[in-house]
């Protein structure tokens, strides 16, 4: 039920007051905690290879529709976390950079050609590539930062990138939107080819 206009304005004023109210200064919070979160959050966002693949997961989910639209973004972080765990533990995975580049190529191609495999196959494809992305995040935890907040930061950033992809993918309901998504898939795949070339160079 939508509240009446009078209540909405009171709510807005109260929210404004609460947001601006000066609170006590807390002098002894743990040092460096927020950096861990920020570093983790910025890690997937600051790498174009990660961004392309994460957004492509969302785009593909949007093309495939329910239940893939939410199964893929659920499967990805969970499997990515396994890769991250291996990275934390120092277990090497060969060809991580190639795997990340290949993820952009494969997922971009799937979006470009609107490939519609069974849900299990789609989840497996996404999951396999998630291992490489997770491992890259896990091995690059800077020394002295909170691993918990770093982990939360990069999981949340990954989820936000999926959400961006799903948000863009909502144009799929229109014919021009479907063409736009296919074009976006081609761009992602082309980006993947570039990163693969860089990995080999």
């Amino acid at each position, binding site marked *: 039920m939508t509240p009446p206009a009078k209540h909405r304005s009171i709510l807005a*004023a109260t929210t404004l007051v609460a947001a601006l109210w000066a609170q006590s200064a807390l002098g002894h919070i743990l040092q460096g905690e927020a950096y861990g979160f920020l570093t983790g959050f910025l890690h997937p966002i600051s790498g174009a290879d990660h961004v392309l693949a994460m957004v492509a997961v969302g785009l593909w989910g949007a093309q495939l529709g329910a239940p893939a639209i939410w199964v893929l973004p659920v499967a990805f972080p969970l499997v990515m976390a396994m890769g991250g765990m291996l990275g934390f533990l120092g277990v090497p995975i060969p060809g991580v950079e190639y795997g990340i580049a290949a993820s952009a190529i494969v997922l971009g191609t799937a979006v470009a050609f609107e490939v519609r495999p069974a849900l299990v196959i789609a989840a497996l494809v996404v999951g396999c590539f998630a291992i490489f992305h997770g491992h890259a995040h896990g091995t690059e935890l800077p020394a002295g930062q909170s691993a918990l907040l770093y982990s939360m930061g990069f999981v949340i950033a990954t989820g936000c990138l999926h959400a961006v992809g799903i948000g863009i993918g909502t144009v799929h309901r229109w014919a021009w939107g479907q063409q736009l998504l296919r074009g976006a898939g081609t761009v992602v795949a082309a980006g993947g080819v570039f990163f693969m070339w860089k990995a080999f160079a």
Partner: protein
Amino acid sequence: MKGTSALRMPARTIAALAVALMCGPAEAHLNATGMGPIYDGLMHFLTSPEDLVPVLALGLLAGLRGAPYGRRAMFTLPVAWLLGSLVGLSGALVTVGTLWASLWFLVLGGLVVADAKLSLRSMTALSALLGMVHGYLNGTGMGFSAATIVATLGLAAAVFVLVVVVAALVVALRAQWGRIAVRVGGSWIAASGLLMLGWSIRGT
């Protein structure tokens, strides 16, 4: 009364701005108020993700199951947390690192993702266990004193507020996408738990 309604909004805005700009002194140590330990407990919880996130996950889980589960969690969890803290105050310091927290992240996050159909009794047991374990760990780190006893009240109050707010927000969700968003949030919590498990294993 067109003129009156036209004046109402500016008056409210002016009042809101006046209150917003009415800054009080920044009391970093709260000696003057005597409320320091309460806020110590409250802020300890709110700035400790290893405590905060499992409570958030339990709130999500209770909210997904419905109002009776939310009501059960909102009383069981803070009471168990308070009891656990009080017992822990006189207990020996336990150093478990982030292992416990990562297990709770995994279990509760996993239950949220799966939208697990728990019985009310299981929810009660889960809330009690989470409260007792984390409360005890909090308590052992605080040491026994009059101030820390008061701080446990702050802890329990913060736990109560968080679980009530989260469960109520989720219970109120009617749209299917809202419930799916909650489950996606659960997957993030479980994924963070898995990562933390790796970190804990490496640490040991």
